[in-house]
């Protein structure tokens, strides 16, 4: 648990440092990581990027609320799969409330996303309706605050 919490925050911690922090041997720590990877608890190691800081990068994110008719026998899973297989789809969640699936899509332009919605998503038989919201600005993503964070140490240098 503690190991997972540490590497969820920083996937690049060295095994040696992790071992020291957790008061384990390096081998035991390595084994634990391999085990978690094999069990599928650790699915990958990603980097959080603030793309708006990258010159020349133009990108658009949209969150789409989708209402669907569940398929007999398999419920929402089949429909969700039809949607999440598209590579431009970054996240799909089954939701309680006013709509069924929340789909997050990334594209280069608004046009590209609207084409995805009209030609691919709405074209699915099971999709009843879609509502598309474009993201204007990301403030925080996956627990990381994006805007110029001032994380200066504000403490005095030496204190009792």
């Amino acid at each position, binding site marked *: 648990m503690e190991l997972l919490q540490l590497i969820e925050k920083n996937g690049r911690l060295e095994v040696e440092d992790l071992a020291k922090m*957790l*008061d384990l041997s390096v081998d035991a720590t390595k084994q634990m990581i391999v085990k978690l990877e094999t069990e599928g608890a650790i699915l990958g190691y990603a980097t959080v990027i603030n793309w708006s800081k990258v010159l020349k990068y133009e990108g658009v994110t949209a969150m789409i609320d989708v209402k669907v008719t569940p398929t007999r026998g398999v419920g929402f899973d089949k429909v969700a799969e039809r949607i999440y297989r598209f590579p431009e789809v970054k996240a799909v969640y089954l939701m309680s409330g006013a709509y069924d699936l929340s789909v997050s899509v990334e594209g280069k332009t608004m046009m590209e996303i609207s084409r995805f919605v009209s030609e691919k998503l709405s074209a699915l038989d099971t999709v009843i309706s879609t509502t598309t919201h474009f993201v204007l600005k990301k403030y925080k993503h996956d627990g990381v605050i994006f805007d110029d964070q001032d994380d200066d140490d504000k403490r005095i240098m*030496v*204190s009792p």
Partner: protein
Amino acid sequence: MRDQKHSYLSRSVDQLKPSGIRRFFDLASQMENVISLGVGEPDFVTPWNVIEASFHSLEQGYTAYTANAGLFELREEISKYLNKSYEVAYNPENQVIVTVGASQAIDIALRAIINPGEEVIVVEPGFVSYAPAVALAGGTPVTIQATAENAFNIQPYQIEAAITPNTKAIILCSPNNPTGAVLSKDELSGIASVIEKHDLLVISDEIYAELTYDEVFTSFASIKGMIDRTILISGFSKAFAMTGWRLGYAAGPKDIIAAMTKIHQYTIMCAPTMAQHGALEALRHGNDSVIQMKTSYRQRRNFVVKALNEMGLSCHSPGGAFYVFPSVENTGLSSEEFAEQLLHEERVAVVPGNVFGKSGEGHIRCSYATSLKQLDEAMKRMARFVERRL
């Protein structure tokens, strides 16, 4: 101005030695690119819900004085919190006072109990303010030395040896600044017998109580027979990362709290109101944040203790607070030499152990309330420095 012989200054102030910490602060502040392990406060910013609650209180117009002893609601929460966490029962009506940091609680506790010439036993290595606070209150500080052989836990016989007919009280601090040492329940019971036998009071500074990593914390006041002999001091600075809010508290016997409240009323009126509202939120909904910070401190402690031992500085793993107190004796340097040379050569600031008392000589205090990245870099720099000395 009068000349030296006729200084306007009070003799008791004039005779106080300036703190050795101050000197290191001046040295380190003049340099660039210093990683400081010399900081006696959390690196975390106060939990957001606490900040938000304080904003809200200001928006609501809570900008006036509170009752002298502090908001009743807050005293009630403190009393519940102490009861739930450490099984000590205090009546919020007359046994709890909210103060300007634990610092002020210590000051008024001492002023409430000391008659001129009475002695207060102060354990070294210890927090730098105790002995000056005793002296300013008109008492005589009598220092005793906890030693590395006993993992810096003071032994009952050492206390007993320092007792005279003038002894009024002893100040205990567990978990300890600067050593991180935690007194176990058995050790506290041993001390309690001495206290009982000689009819003394204990000022128990438990400001690091929440930050214990290996054992459940025992409050001195929870030891049998000790609640009537203990002034329990604590606060929000450390566990809740609220040093700048200046909020602490004391709990104790009715007559002593009443006397402390009298001093408080005449000299401070009350602790800052917006901070009291923040503290209320901290006690009601701050536990998750405390646990998260505590987990992080424990991981960093493990990291630093391993790293120090690997580089050849002997360091036992302290049970609490956010300090380690390794020995630097095998480098052949004194505490001050070590700290000063380390600062100049590798730009890492630590505090020489001797500023915390005689028995701190040969040790340095490193605070691990610093990001892991900084700690990692600091340990690399220190390892280079130590390697050149061994």
